[in-house]
């Protein structure tokens, strides 16, 4: 069984559990909606200014909501010592972490879609017409955030204060991804051409490659012992 097949098996298992319990999606989705609603009262909605900082607002919400998703990823393996069972099985540690990242990615995309719908309604932003570029930006940035969440979810899984420690550790590391994602999202929302912002696309691609490679190489050291 290759690494990709292993990761898919783990992701399918996690998503099956999530569809049944909806622990992460309910928490992250409702959190995102509430934050967007509160900010809609704080800012002047339906103004042109929203296009200027809409990207920042969205990615702030995704980063906070993401932490709720990432915290559950490895915590799901703690009851009945499932993590030990997985680590003793032929499943590779890299397959496990990348599988968790796949599941994070899928769940975060759902939260992002729900947030975008709420964002469109309460802030009067037409994002549907910019769907193609927005999809590219969201996919690249969400993968980077998801793999970081999986790696540090694994590192913090046995900490008593993991709900606190995980965001404290990953937010500083997310900064390049978030800056690039915010810049690109604002560019797309402002109807400007992304072709003039290719350096930010390169930042996203490079971050994704670096974080995924590090996760793959360090997985055993992260999870064993």
């Amino acid at each position, binding site marked *: 069984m290759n690494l990709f097949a292993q990761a898919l098996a783990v992701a399918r*298992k996690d998503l099956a559990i999530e569809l049944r319990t909806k622990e992460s999606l309910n928490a992250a989705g409702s959190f995102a909606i509430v934050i967007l609603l509160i900010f809609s009262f704080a800012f002047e909605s339906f103004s042109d200014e929203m296009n200027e900082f809409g990207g920042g607002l969205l990615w702030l919400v995704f980063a906070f909501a993401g932490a709720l998703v990432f915290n559950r990823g490895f915590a799901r393996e703690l009851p*009945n010592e499932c993590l*030990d069972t997985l680590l003793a099985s032929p499943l590779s540690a890299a397959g496990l972490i990348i599988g968790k990242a796949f599941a994070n990615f899928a769940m975060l995309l759902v939260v992002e879609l729900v947030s975008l719908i709420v964002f469109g309604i309460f802030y009067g932003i037409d994002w549907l017409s910019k769907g193609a570029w927005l999809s590219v930006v969201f996919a690249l940035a969400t993968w980077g955030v998801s793999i970081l969440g999986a790696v540090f979810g694994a590192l913090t899984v046995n900490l008593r204060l993991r709900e606190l420690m995980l965001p404290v550790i990953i937010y500083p590391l997310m900064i390049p991804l978030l800056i690039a994602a915010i810049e690109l999202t604002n560019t797309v929302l402002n109807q400007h051409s992304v072709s003039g912002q290719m350096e930010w696309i390169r930042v996203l691609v490079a971050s994704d490659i670096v974080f995924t490679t590090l996760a793959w190489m360090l997985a055993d050291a992260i999870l064993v012992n």
Partner: protein
Amino acid sequence: MTQAIALDQVWKFYGDYAALRDCTLSVQEGSCCALLGRNGAGKTTLLRILAGLTTFQGGAVSMFGEKPRAEKARRQSGFLGHGIGIYEDLSAAENLHFFARITGSADIRSLTTTWLERVGLTRVASMPVRQFSRGMRQRLALARTFIHSPKILLLDEPFTSLDDRAIAMLSELLVEARQRGATIVLSTHQLREALAVASHVALVENGRLRYTGERTQEMLDDPSLLYRLHTDLGAPQ
């Protein structure tokens, strides 16, 4: 006979505390080695090292010539720890299907069906495990451990808190595993059950292997004999 498991002068520290001290053990292919010892003696640590779940600071460990974390070694082994290692929110069938898949088993669907029948869970195959009784969970955990017919079985206190049906099932599975040539290492402080299935015995005390050798008739007749002869603390009361 081929050497299946070899520990050579293994040390394991938790901080300053030496959980295993200079342990050397050889387990031949097809044998069943019972790791005996009181709580905290180092049995679980030794099994966790064999399962590749923890690192060690000195010495060498091999399973069929491979390091415990090597994929080849993990593919050949089945591990049952203190936890049952199954997902509460998945059904029995989904659990077995998932574990059959990640162990690289062929014909996953029929294997799942066979093992559900084997452990008497066919009727509740699609029910979430959280609705299972303790006994049903234990039987599912046994199916999960044995589903890929591992060549090495690492079982940590497998008889503890099993109901009668699960004990009978485990004993039957262990006999079958030995008949097909599997190597078994099981830790326990339940002497009678362990000695009944073991071909070899290793006695652990304070992280040291005090005795290793074949299980004898005298041990069966007097299970506390080993403790009296080979430990400072004497026989368990």
